[in-house]
């Protein structure tokens, strides 16, 4: 017997739960203004989240998946992206999309049940993807296009811990490895796939090690540490752009709410665990750090709350004022040009459209 291969999985953290710097600050993080920008985005994300849930509870929004407690993961990833990169998200990535030119009102429109919420102005952003684990393949396809066209661009795709069980996730990593594609696979490990805990999803000690199956490197990062997330994803995207090499990053966080507004986590989750995990939550952590370096004050905090709320209210108003799309839109974007054979049905829809309760 001889050993023919061996592998290691690293874990990265910079600002720990006790607001201590446990590693050198990356250069971006030495600029308080940059950290404040991230902080503002996380707060906006959290307030938006609360608002969306309130809208859902009052019947003004459809099913909505909260990102409570996961703001650092998404905001950190979003900030790591360069303008020319492409994001292929799943359905919990508010914190990324708002940094890609997607409007809050569009996000509401989407969860309100309107396809126009996906008609982003920046045409290269992918919309939310609902079938779990299916979108990493699209990211690999985009990365293939970049590679063929010799463009120095990278793709970031995100899925959840549950998503890593899907064959598509693995197939995407495998082709990314063997074709050396400029793509970063981020797994937002919030410990739950609806009611199924991480421990019942896979026997792998880390999700990061799934990259070993595809022949490239995987790593874990503290998902409550926005500095570390931003740093590791930035480096991985650079590696993708410069060396055309994929990376898997497992972002460890905790889902601090029901799976979606249609779920009731009390059926399966221990309140105690959630409380313990809350100790690590990312916003308070960064705020205390900013305060400790005198970069943030109570007054700024209050202003931020006010301006964020105002921005959110404005987008809610915009959303609520959006009239129904014409019914015929059902047909209008099915093909580039409506096939003749469908014209009859389109007429039928116009005829019968208003007979529905």
């Amino acid at each position: 017997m001889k050993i023919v291969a061996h592998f290691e999985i690293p874990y990265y953290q910079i600002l720990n739960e006790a607001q201590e710097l446990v590693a050198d600050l990356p250069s971006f993080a030495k600029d308080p203004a940059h950290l404040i920008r991230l902080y503002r985005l996380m707060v906006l994300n959290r307030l938006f989240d609360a608002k969306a849930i309130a809208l859902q509870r009052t019947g003004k929004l459809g099913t909505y998946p909260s990102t409570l407690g996961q703001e650092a993961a998404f905001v950190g990833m979003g900030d790591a992206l360069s303008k020319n990169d492409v994001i292929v998200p799943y359905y919990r990535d508010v914190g990324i999309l708002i940094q890609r030119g997607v409007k809050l009102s569009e996000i509401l429109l989407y969860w309100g049940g309107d396809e126009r919420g996906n008609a982003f102005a920046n045409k290269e952003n992918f919309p939310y993807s609902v079938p779990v684990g299916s979108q990493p393949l699209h990211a690999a396809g985009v990365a293939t296009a970049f590679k063929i066209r010799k463009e120095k661009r990278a793709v970031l795709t995100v899925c959840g811990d549950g998503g890593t069980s899907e064959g598509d996730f693995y197939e995407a990593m495998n082709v990314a490895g063997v074709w050396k594609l400029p793509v970063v696979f981020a797994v937002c490990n919030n410990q739950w796939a609806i009611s199924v805990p991480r421990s019942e999803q896979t026997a792998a000690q880390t999700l990061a090690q799934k990259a070993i199956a595809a022949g490239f490197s995987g790593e874990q990062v503290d998902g409550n540490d926005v500095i570390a997330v931003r740093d590791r994803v930035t480096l991985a995207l650079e590696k993708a752009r410069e060396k055309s090499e994929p990376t898997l990053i497992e972002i460890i966080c905790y889902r601090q709410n029901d799976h979606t507004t249609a779920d009731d986590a009390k059926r399966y989750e221990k309140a105690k665990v959630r409380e313990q995990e809350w100790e690590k939550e990312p916003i308070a952590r960064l705020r205390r750090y900013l305060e400790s370096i005198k970069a943030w004050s109570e007054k700024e905090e209050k202003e931020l709350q006010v301006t964020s709320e105002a921005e959110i209210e404005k987008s809610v108003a915009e959303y609520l004022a959006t009239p129904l799309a014409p019914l015929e839109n059902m047909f209008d974007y099915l093909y580039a040009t409506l096939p003749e054979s469908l014209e009859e049905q389109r007429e039928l829809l116009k005829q019968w459209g208003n007979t529905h309760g």
Partner: protein
Amino acid sequence: MAEITLVEAVDLALAYEMQADPSVVILGEDIAKNGGVFRATQGLLDKFGPDRVRDTPLAESMIGGLAIGMAIEGLKPVAEFQFMGFLYPALDQIINHAARIRNRTRGHLSCPVVFRAPFGSGIHAPEHHSESTEALLAHIPGLRVVIPSSPVRAYGLLLASIRDPDPVIFLEPSRLYRFAKQEVEDNGKALPLDKCFTLREGKDITLVTWGAMIKETMAAAEVIVKEGIDVEIIDVATLKPLDMETILSSVEKTGRCVIIHEAPKTGGVGADISAQIAEKALLSLKAPVMRITGYDTIVPYARLEKYYIPSVPQIVDAIKKTMEFA
């Protein structure tokens, strides 16, 4: 005897058969501790324990292939896909293996599996939660495709499906899950597969439907009966294999037929029913068979989805047009 909903009837049938037959094992995403996202498996983990009530990792092809292996090895797995739109990754396992293992081995191996999935639109869920692609499965030789449309039929047909020695796709109309309650006797009696249910006898026109469209069809019938038209209503229930006998003899009697389904028109199961009527009862027809169906479009997101579903006035109109055809 309690009045229960369709989803409760599913749960009841599962509990009955798990009690009666230790080889019945259920599996799927969130079906154990959470009792299923619609609660169709509520309470079963407590009753039957984690060996027989299994939350799976999040992988549908896996659910398909694993259940097939279990069934071939002698268990009777009842596997849930969380929504029909998430069954597609398992189509390869279902088409290439479940449907064929008996034929492939000349009967030496068999695959008594049930694949359950909620289906259909109208529940204001996100994209992919509103599929009605039963026609895909109804085209595959070797499968049975069963769709209940009431609590009583959900109970009896699910029992029959589990007991059936071959693979059954059991599609539950999510729009009807909590629509109406019905008294269901928990007596373990199965209803026949491969048979249509005639819900109302009538002599003027045959309405053929299944799944959630039973709701609008019944409502339309109520309107139309008041106008003195005597409708016969057939719930197809087992879409594959198709009991054309019941449908044909009804159409031979009435001479008129409207087929109503939610799936897109083109390639829907209604096409086959209509084609067979035209082949075998052409001379009985007093009017063309009309199909009132979903459009050949993708089911819209929640804000527009109701406009996708055939409406009661639309069905009423089709019945009238068919009656007036001379």
